């Protein structure tokens, strides 16, 4: 969105290559910066920013919505992938263990599952059922939908970091195959969010990839 040249590279050990253990991360010259917040600050230090046109109130609002997305959508994604037994067994564990050979693939997949479940325990989501999680996602989408309204982007007519983050999560949810389509359906029930995703995909990604279904099993775009 900032019109900076970027090359995306997919590696099986990207999680371990990252200095903080989380993807995505960028490798620019000699520097390696990981996670959205530091990447945004890094590009801002170099003089590129999407939120220059916002005033302080709007910036605070943007931060609040970004926190909402992180707390709700991200946690729901992790819950559905790892805490739901059918999804974990059929999709998440085989996918996570595919680059490795036996028995390492089993060990690493179970290790990841235990790690995510421990995290869910710590934040109190362990007791939630799948239906409750779907409800939470629905509420989050409702809040986003209300904020978006009929505008093309969340703030004015220019995209900001919030647009990038929301697009990332919604696009991934819509294009990742899970055991049931219920999550995708919840998103689709908010038509303006769906139109928002399509619009961004057409404006920024149409020329660089074949189509929305080419992603398949990938968790989301990773910038290298």
């Amino acid at each position: 969105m900032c019109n900076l040249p970027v090359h995306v590279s997919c590696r099986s050990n990207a999680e371990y290559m990252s200095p903080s253990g989380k993807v995505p991360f960028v490798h620019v010259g000699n520097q390696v910066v990981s996670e959205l917040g530091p990447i945004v600050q890094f590009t801002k230090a170099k003089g590129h920013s999407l939120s220059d046109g916002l005033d302080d109130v709007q910036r605070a609002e943007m931060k609040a919505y970004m926190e909402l997305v992180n707390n709700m959508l991200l946690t729901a994604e992790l819950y559905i992938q790892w805490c739901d037994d059918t999804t974990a067994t059929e999709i998440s564990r085989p996918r996570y263990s595919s680059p490795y050979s036996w028995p390492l693939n089993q060990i690493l997949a179970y290790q990841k599952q235990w790690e995510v479940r421990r995290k869910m325990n710590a934040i109190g989501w362990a007791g939630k059922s799948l239906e409750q999680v779907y409800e939470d996602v629905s509420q989050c989408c409702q809040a986003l939908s209300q904020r978006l309204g009929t505008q093309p982007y969340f703030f004015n007519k220019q995209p900001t970091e919030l647009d990038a983050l929301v697009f990332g999560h919604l696009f991934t949810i819509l294009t990742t195959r899970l055991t049931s389509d219920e999550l995708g359906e919840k998103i689709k029930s908010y038509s303006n969010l769906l139109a928002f995703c399509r619009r961004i995909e057409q404006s920024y990604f149409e020329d660089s990839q074949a189509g929305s279904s080419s992603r398949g099993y990938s968790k989301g775009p990773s910038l290298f």
Partner: protein
Amino acid sequence: MGTVHARSLDPLPMQGPELGVHADDIETPEMEQESKQEVLENKDVIVQHVHIDGLGRTKEDCLTYEIAGVFRAKNLIDVMKRAHEARQKLLRLGIFRQVEVVIDTSQGVDALPNGLDVTFEVTELRRMTGSYNTMVGNNEGSMVLGLKLPNVFGRAEKLTFQFSYGTKETSYGLSFFKPQPGHFERNFAVNFYKVTGQFPWSSLRETDRGVSTEFSFPLWKTNHTLKWEGVWRELGCLARTASFAVREESGHSLKSSLSHAMVIDTRNSTILPRRGALLKINQELAGYTGGDASFLKEDFELQFNKRLFWDSVLSASLWGGCLLPIGDKPTCIADRFYLGGPTSVRGFSMYSIGPQSEGDYLGGEVYWAGAVHLYTPLPFRPGKGGFGDLFRTHFFLNAGNLCNLNYGDGPRAHLSKLAECIRWSYGAGIVLRLGNIARLELNYCIPMGVQSGDRICDGVQFGAGIRFL
């Protein structure tokens, strides 16, 4: 040599005041004594019984092989020699604290006049021994707990457990060793381990969790070892400033490999040998028994020693190795060879020769290293016969090279690449021998042939280790 007691064959009559001797009587026994005294060396003897006393949990069947040689003795000196050899064999099993030999005449109903009984009085080691050490080194302190169970099931099996808890890393290992009864040199061992290592020259941290089984056997004059090893390797960056090439290697991988090692060692000592030669050839094939890593690795080590005038020793050694990846995956940084440092090419910093990226050394797939040493006793020989004998001065010339294989160029191009830009160094120093395992060196080195990217350590360099070029 242990204590050997031997009683004479014919017991002589006792003489004393109780017998009430007459003058005539005194004369006769002495003459009898002279005629009965025989030269024991030439007298034929038969070893009738060989006992082992003091066995607790050791099973006798595995010991019969070690003591079988004693039965074949023909005369007394032979008996003593063979008994000594059997004692050495019993001690090398590692299950006895002490072995004493007692040679006596045969007693009992079926005793022959020239029959002998040989008894080995042994003291077994305790069932379990423990040790506790603290170690400090490399900015890390650690506590090491060791547990050893010699002779677990009675046939010289050994179980060892070692646990090391440090400020930075924790590692442990469990090992089981079993020799074949009767052929101690044929043995097999099973190890489980978790080892962590930090390599600051590559900014790399490696954690290995693995299991290995090995089987050793002698064949004519050589000693072979076949080993299967399965390791779960986890690589990580040691610092945030690690180069991207090292960062790319982070993550998990599984290596399952079969390896074979052959050793011919005719040296008289492992550290500072005076004569003899060593040839060690090692090959490792990974990938055909599972796992992610897939390569063929060859490694050899050659050393000659010859004694010269005035107690000095000339030693020449050559090392080399080659790592060939199989398939299209590139080699892993943990499998490659490294060169440089006080234990290989002296004058350069530890493992700081060859391909590097932003100051992190990545290792190479092909290398060779050679050295010529002249060891002499310390000048003016202080402390001769005692402490001074542990020291030696040496003059050395080291050379070596390390590079990667650029596939498709052919072997001739690789050989020429190894022959150009050779790193070499010369110098002199003092060597201290520690037991029979390790040595310390303090050298003054002058490195030459330094290429851009190598890190040198000219001047005084200190080294400690087990395997030196």
